[in-house]
């Protein structure tokens, strides 16, 4: 189960290869993810974007083994993750109920969910829920400050007392900019506003100093003014704690602010992946182009908005070949609807899955 370090390059924290997830449902088997591969470098942010139903959330849930019982992860899937102590584990091979995954989940990989209301329990105080996490995942070493507790030996020493957990929790709440943190610590989730709850959620996820933070649409439910506060906060904390982030959103405007790399997903496949600037300003895949053109811009108010024609197909009538072929205006007859395009490199760190680029370069994987 423990892989050798050589398989995961040193600057990569986590690498997902050939992730394929299927769901058994009453109506048949649904393939939610097919051949998804990406890597997250240390301290960098990967933006995952795509429309609803494209598999953004499923791929990150698979990384934490949080998928529902009817999900099947393909045996060829590899999810390599470098733990704090330097050892590399394959999360895909762990049982969702094993002690090993429980240590990783919350402790090494933190998660922020979209609905700040739904992800706190309404019957416990914010503090109660925070100290539970802290006491489960943090260990206290005498004389060491909180920052240096990220040290590799952290697992070996004693659990934190309730009081220590409280102090740490209040400090985290303070750090995410909640005013009057010691009061907030004892309040129930319904007493906080949406923005405050999202901050508390971030504080909770970060209180364990995770190596990787998965942020699943963390700002979608918030107002624009609060959204920019939260995005700023996340970047400050990333610089301070040197963690990697996977940022999931359907809003390319948001992703352009925070991400180093972007992966665009459509119906369970990554169709374009590359450096943020390359993907946003020089999109290659017709779908990415459509997605970016559809954003209403303040610069050309009188122009008609450019919609991507058609609707996203349901999970049971996924088109064969390239899954975008039924909405694509550059469709090549006979090819796109039968052959699944492979990853084609169109530049330094810029990969696209589209038949249009096959003739130009042939150095795909």
């Amino acid at each position, binding site marked *: 189960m423990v892989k050798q370090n050589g398989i995961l390059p040193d600057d990569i924290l986590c690498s997902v290869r050939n992730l394929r997830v299927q769901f058994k449902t009453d109506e048949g088997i649904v393939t939610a993810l097919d051949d998804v591969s990406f890597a997250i470098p240390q301290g960098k942010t990967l933006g995952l974007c795509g429309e609803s139903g494209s598999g953004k959330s499923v791929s990150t849930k698979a990384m934490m083994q949080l998928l529902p019982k009817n999900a099947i992860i393909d045996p060829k899937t590899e999810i390599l993750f470098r733990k704090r102590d330097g050892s590399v584990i394959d999360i895909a091979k762990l049982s969702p109920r094993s002690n090993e995954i429980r240590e990783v989940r919350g402790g090494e990989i933190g998660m922020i969910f979209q609905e700040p209301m739904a992800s706190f329990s309404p019957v416990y105080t914010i503090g109660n829920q925070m100290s539970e996490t802290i006491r489960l995942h943090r260990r206290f070493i005498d004389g060491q400050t909180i920052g240096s507790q990220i040290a590799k030996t952290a697992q070996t020493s004693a659990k934190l007392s309730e009081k220590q957990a409280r102090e740490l929790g209040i400090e985290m709440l303070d750090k995410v900019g909640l005013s009057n943190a010691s009061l907030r610590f004892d309040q129930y989730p319904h007493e906080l*506003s949406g923005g405050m709850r999202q901050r508390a959620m971030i504080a909770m996820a970060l209180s364990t100093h995770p190596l990787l933070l998965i942020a699943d649409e963390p700002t979608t439910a918030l107002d*624009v*003014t609060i959204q*920019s506060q939260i995005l700023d906060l996340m970047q400050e904390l990333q610089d301070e704690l040197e963690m990697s982030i996977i940022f999931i959103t359907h809003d390319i405007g948001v992703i352009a602010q925070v991400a180093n790399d972007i992966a665009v997903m459509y119906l369970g496949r990554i169709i374009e992946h590359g*450096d*943020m600037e390359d993907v946003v*300003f020089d999109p290659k895949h017709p779908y990415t182009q459509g997605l970016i053109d559809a954003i*209403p811009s*303040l610069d050309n108010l009188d122009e008609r908005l450019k919609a991507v024609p058609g609707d*996203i197909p349901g999970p049971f009538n996924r088109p064969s070949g390239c899954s975008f072929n039924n909405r694509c205006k550059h469709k090549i007859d006979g090819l796109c609807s039968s052959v699944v395009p492979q990853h084609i490199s169109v530049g330094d760190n810029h990969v696209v899955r589209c038949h249009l680029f096959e003739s130009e370069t042939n150095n795909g994987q």
Partner: protein
Amino acid sequence: MASEQALINVDGLKVYYPVGSKGFLKKETFYVKAVDGLNFDIYPGETFGLVGESGSGKTTVGRAMLRAQDITGGAVTYNINGKKVVIADLSEAELRKFRQHAQLIFQDPYSSLNPRMTVRDIIAEPLEAMGLCKTREEVDEKVRVIAERCKLSLEHLRRFPHAFSGGQRQRICIARALVCDPKFVVCDESVSALDVSIQAEILNLLSDLQKERGLSYLFIAHDLSVVAHISDRVAVMYVGNIVELASRERLFLRPMHPYTKALMSAIPKVAKGEVFKPEKLDGEIPNPANLPAGCAFHTRCKFARDQCSSKTPEWREPEPGHFVACHFAEELADELAAAPVLKKRTSKKK
């Protein structure tokens, strides 16, 4: 500002919600002032955008204008075919009849369609409820026409809502709202729940329908770039009051209220070689049950002076058609227009 040709005149609209009482024998009742004295007109064929953060009272305004919500004070007057109708004075039966002129499209297309009715029945329901058609054939004909216009096929009409995607569901909602041929439609966050590619399509459909049918929209949204695209005039709300109202161009090029500017600069922008640095607006919208004295925005305003915390700013018209509630609007306008939202990207990234 009441005018003859306006379709709807809103005059001093107030909606208060009682939130418990205090004092001896609980004689003193306390209110949340969700909407506190709004004045505006909506003209035929116009899209009136209403933006603001959550809790600012946008939805309450929309509901009050349709009398889906009882109002505490003021009046909403419709001008239907030259006849003035004060909506608060209508009886239940008259109101039911009146509903054919004013309709509502909701935010969430997943919860606003009855899962046990076919799409045909959903779209036909307003016609049947208001008794606008005599025969079933007439109903079917109207449903077919509007469904086709909203890009729903005959095949779709037989199905149930669960078989549709978000964009298709929103088109069903639009068809339902427009089947009785209204003059005024409230779109309450009607595209917020949709993905961008679908959102663009729905916005295009809404503006096409507006041109064909001469509709007026009250377009409520928290996303300024969406509102900017569809609206002719835009009003910015902040805890129960409109702080600025102007034509789209004036509002975006020369905002006079600091809140408008802050809201606009918080919209994420995508521009090559430039890093997005929004003007920071600290803090959150105040609790409407416990409003700060004076200008409600002074707690978050970086231009706030002594006067702002004591005196409530008046609703003024410093330029023709440009209304604002700020003591220092003229002074601030130049400053606000000058500050660029986009700055050069530093090479911190990569």
